[in-house]
């Protein structure tokens, strides 16, 4: 690496003000001797991919968010046809907000209108739709003559007080209180199963969500409130959120631009850096449709990251060019010298970033892999746009002379910056030991707090969305006023054809349900077996003494034809045990799954297999397992990879320790922050851990590279560090701030996990930056001072040296 003083000599020496075009590496000659070609090619690529970018679609897919290789998910996928009828259900609640009863003509008319509107929605499985207005909602009664029944609202209904009294009675004996009618009689709901999956056209969730919003807007009046709950609405809201977040991109650009301009005071180069970083984003987004990829709520993070990383590396280049021009070099010479000095440093840093992303590929969850893929792609693109195109552009435009002088003044003004002198204190033994001791204490405290970090989602409702989002408020209303749990674990019981009702199988299910109902966290269970109990009781005029699973095979057999499809398929090969849970905390899921697995091991039933798992809780449990395992593996991999890269760069374990320890501190503190903020380790936050380390090592790479060069010239640590700070300190600050700002805009996202990612990444970037500026010199004072004589100082000839820094 050429030192800042080397650069100064270059600038000061008259005979090197113009470089020989044949000097430099082959890469440098290729780039700078074909500048027009490079500009034209880049412009064409940008234009072409810009056109492609318009084809980019934003979507969300449930399947991409789950670990499809996990046995639970495989079971779920294998049996999807039998599970489809119940999983994807939309609930539209029509609520009276004035405290009045639903037994009111005006209210009932509104429900009828909403019912008709929902009926017309695309994707609704109309024969299975239910509300108090649909003819399949019936009441049932035991009389002396046997069972009697009828429609809850029949053709004779005329809205008269007598008809209302009859409606009340019909609802009471329909068994629908808590299902279609709220327990407080102030709302009722329309239940609309959706035709999703094989054999049905794909549902456009965004469009469906918009149509639901139209229904909500049309029918919500003074005393009526419409609420919508269901997977389709979650997906719709997530897609809307992802689109909304893309608009934050403009903020991120503006803020980063302001920060860079504040730093350079040169509009020309600021615009160039932003333009090149944006070009990288255009390339990256343009490539997605070509690769057949969509943007989803997870990968919308990538453009922000690519832009921010581009800004920080671009700023490095601009900083170099500015200082060289300030020293009197012409723009082409300055650009070439900067390219020589910094291309490989930047390249190494981008390789580290890529490794950080690529490690995510080991996680078998599609959204994370796509995130890894698109982010690696974006960072690779940055090599072209910000390490090659930007210096070429700067060699054409140059920088404003005033700004160049200012940058030189700043970098030579030895005592001018109080902050640098403060940071320099950490090169002294006492301060260094103090800082290290304090870090150790903080790390220890963080470690204790971090033990509280949970796997998976913790908040009730739809964890994808914010707790106070309209969806989660609607969901909370549903769970409070209706007997409906939104956390369901489904166990599948597979039997040979027509054996689902075998008493032996049902008795096993009965025992499993009994076991599960004893488990804390289980609200209730339902199955073909408990349905059999209920039917036995109803068959005996409702006498509670008959609530038993009786071993009467002839009476059990017809159940496969009469039981609801959510309990058994018509082939009588697969029945479901539906376990309603009180929450979806990872500990609850893990314990309940453990109970089921223990039961399966202890109760082998010939002719039946109990399979895990489906239902949102089953899928979540599988995801948690994959995430928990991956969170450990990923740390080994990312730290292993970064350590290796650092070692290749520094060839000194002491330097590696200097670079890695601050990252470890950040990782611990980030986990402590997660525990403190109640953010779980999940699909969304897992990548952050890898990204934090991968991107975080950049600072240390830059600082330690330059620091060691100075140390090799024999300078004291204090002098070497001050020099390092003057040359690169501001850029490190700039990098940290632009990265943090770009991702911090995510905190405003309506999607909870995006906000979580934003908080954590911003935290990681800032703490990494502080760690690099404070702990690197402190560690260096302990480790590196003795290290300098191990490395052989060598002369640094001008023309050959440019490739030194990182690789």
């Amino acid at each position, binding site marked *: 690496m050429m030192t800042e003083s080397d650069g100064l000599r270059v600038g000061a020496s008259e005979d090197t003000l113009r470089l020989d075009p044949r000097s430099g590496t082959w890469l440098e000659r290729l780039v700078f001797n074909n500048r027009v070609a490079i500009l034209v090619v880049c412009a064409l690529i940008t234009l072409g991919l810009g056109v492609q970018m318009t084809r980019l679609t934003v979507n969300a897919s449930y399947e991409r968010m789950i670990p499809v290789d996990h046995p639970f998910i495989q079971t779920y996928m294998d049996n999807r046809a039998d599970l489809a009828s119940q999983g994807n259900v939309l609930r539209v609640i029509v609520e009276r907000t004035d405290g009045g009863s639903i037994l009111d003509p005006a209210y009932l008319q509104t429900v009828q209108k909403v019912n008709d509107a929902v009926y017309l929605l695309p994707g609704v499985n109309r024969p299975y739709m239910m509300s108090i207005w649909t003819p*399949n909602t019936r009441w049932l009664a035991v009389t002396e003559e046997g069972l009697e029944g009828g429609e809850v609202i029949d053709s004779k209904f005329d809205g008269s007080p007598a008809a209302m009294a009859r409606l009340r009675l019909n609802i009471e004996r329909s068994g629908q209180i808590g299902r279609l009618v709220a327990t407080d009689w102030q709302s009722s709901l329309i239940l609309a199963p959706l035709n999703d999956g094989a054999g049905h056209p794909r549902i456009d969730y965004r469009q469906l969500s918009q149509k639901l919003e139209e229904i909500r807007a049309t029918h919500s009046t003074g005393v009526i409130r419409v609420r919508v709950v269901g997977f389709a609405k979650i997906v719709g809201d997530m897609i809307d959120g992802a689109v909304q977040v893309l608009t934050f991109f403009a903020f991120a650009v503006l803020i980063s631009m302001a920060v860079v301009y504040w730093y350079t005071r040169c509009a020309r180069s600021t615009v160039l850096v932003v333009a090149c970083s944006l070009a990288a984003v255009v390339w990256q987004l343009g490539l997605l449709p070509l690769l057949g990829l969509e943007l989803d709520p997870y990968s919308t993070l990538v453009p922000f990251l690519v832009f921010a990383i581009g800004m920080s590396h671009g700023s490095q280049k601009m900083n170099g060019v500015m200082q060289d021009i300030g020293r009197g070099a012409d723009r082409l010479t300055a650009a070439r010298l900067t390219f020589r000095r910094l291309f490989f440093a930047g390249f190494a840093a981008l390789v580290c970033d890529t490794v950080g992303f690529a490690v995510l590929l080991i996680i078998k969850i599609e959204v994370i892999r796509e995130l890894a893929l698109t982010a690696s792609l974006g960072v690779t693109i940055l090599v072209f746009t910000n390490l090659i195109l930007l210096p070429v552009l700067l060699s054409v435009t140059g920088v404003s002379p005033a700004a160049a002088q200012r940058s030189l003044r700043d970098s030579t003004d030895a005592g001018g910056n109080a902050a640098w002198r403060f940071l320099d204190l950490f090169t002294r033994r006492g301060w260094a030991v103090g800082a290290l001791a304090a870090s150790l204490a903080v790390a220890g405290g963080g470690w204790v707090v971090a033990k509280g970090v949970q796997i998976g989602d913790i908040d009730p409702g739809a964890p994808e969305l914010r707790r106070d989002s309209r969806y989660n408020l609607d969901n909370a209303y549903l769970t409070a006023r209706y007997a409906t749990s939104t956390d369901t674990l489904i166990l599948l019981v597979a039997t040979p054809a027509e054996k689902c009702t075998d008493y032996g199988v049902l*008795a*096993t299910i009965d025992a499993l349900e009994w076991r599960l109902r*004893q488990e804390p966290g289980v609200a209730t269970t*339902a199955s073909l077996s408990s349905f059999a109990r209920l039917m036995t009781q109803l068959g005996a005029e409702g006498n509670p003494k008959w609530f038993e699973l009786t071993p009467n*095979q002839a009476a059990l057999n017809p159940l496969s034809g009469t*039981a*609801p499809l959510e309990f058994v398929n018509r082939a009588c090969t697969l029945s479901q045990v539906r376990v309603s849970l009180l929450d979806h905390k990872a500990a609850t899921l893990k314990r309940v799954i453990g109970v089921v697995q223990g039961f399966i091991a202890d109760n082998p039933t010939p002719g039946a297999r109990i399979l895990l798992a489906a239902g949102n809780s089953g899928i979540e449990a599988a995801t948690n397992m994959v995430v928990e395992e991956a969170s450990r593996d990923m740390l080994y991999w990312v730290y292993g990879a970064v350590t290796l890269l650092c070692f290749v760069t520094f060839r000194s374990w002491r330097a590696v320790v200097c670079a890695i320890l601050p990252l470890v501190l950040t990782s611990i503190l980030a986990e402590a922050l997660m525990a403190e903020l109640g953010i779980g380790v999940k699909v969304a936050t897992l990548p952050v851990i890898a990204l934090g380390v991968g991107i975080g090592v950049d600072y240390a790479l830059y600082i330690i590279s330059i620091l060691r060069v100075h140390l090799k010239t024999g300078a004291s640590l204090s002098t070497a560090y001050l020099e390092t700070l003057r040359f690169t300190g501001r850029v490190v600050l700039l990098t940290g701030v632009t990265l943090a700002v770009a991702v911090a805009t995510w905190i405003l996202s309506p999607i909870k996990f995006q906000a979580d990612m934003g908080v954590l990444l911003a935290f990681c970037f800032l703490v990494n930056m502080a760690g690099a500026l404070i702990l690197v010199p402190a560690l260096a004072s302990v480790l590196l001072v003795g290290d300098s004589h191990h490395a052989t100082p060598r002369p640094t000839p001008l023309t050959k040296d440019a490739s030194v820094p990182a690789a």
Partner: protein
Amino acid sequence: MTVGLALSGLAIAWTALPSTPLAAVPNGPATDGSLSAPATAAIHRVLSHPARIPVQPERIGMIAVARAGKRMVAVGLHGLILLSDDDGAQWRVARTTVDVTLTAVRFASARVGWATGHLGVVLHTRDGGETWITQLSGITANDLELAAAKEEAARHPGDAMAAGWLRMVERQRADGPGWPFLNLLVEDEQRATVIGANGIAFATQDGGARWSSISARLGHRQGHHLYGIQSDGDGALVAGELGLLLRATTRNGPFEELTSPYEGSFFGALRSGARLVLYGLRGRVFVSGDGGSTWRPIAWTGQAAFTGGVALPDGRVLLADQSGGLAVSDAGLTKLTPLALRLPPIAGLDVTEHGTVIAVGVAGPKRIPADVLIGKE
């Protein structure tokens, strides 16, 4: 319009009903009614192994409760038997032998008692309910019933009734022990009678060492579940499905069918002093002062079936319905008054030594203090 009984509360309480409609396919797969090997294994399991003891036993569904001296004993789902020695405040789990729904419990003394259950189960205790043994199960009961039916058919050749009964018993035995005992009468530590589904009844004279079928004494009432039994002098009264009402006037004499005041099902029978009370479907209640010969109805507007009842120490009668409503009579048994108190659906009642009523049902045992038992007007 026929007004029926509301099933909603009951259905929700015992298990969560599905939210999708019942499918339209009328028939299940056409397999025969014989039991598979796993089914037979499961029957042996539930008849010989108690269920895992629940974490919160006091919240498990209970079907019946009875007093054993100072102790209250409740029986319910999965063979669970609960004991309380503090007037029903706290409950603990007794040692039992089976994993079937228990339907009734009665004690002859503070120590000796019986409980009935599904799969033809009769349990017996000699230590106030602490430990129980199985005296009869559906497997042996089937054999005993078959032997008795054959004997009866042989004794009365050409009797269509006896022949029909024998065919029913053979068919039932082939289907397995899938029928319950539903109630019992305990006269003393030696003598008890258990009644069950489809007209089947057994009795013991020797503390349960030997149980024998008395279905013939009841007149082979196939097609009728027997729900209620009360002693009346030396005789007994049995009430059941579809208004069935039988009376025996002597200890071992035959039961004769009485003229029933109701064509619907009786779910239970009570005795308060010299008066007999029947209760059942759709909130119907009848009183007899002459040992069952004549009955008068007690007016009541409720529609839910009365599933539990008890005679209070002062002679009034407390009835509980399947929606959790309670009604108390006056001392003359002329009218019923609803209580302000509502509980989860109730299946059984009894009174502690201190006059507290214990109501058991879907949500386990609940205490009803004596001062609550004043009807609202």
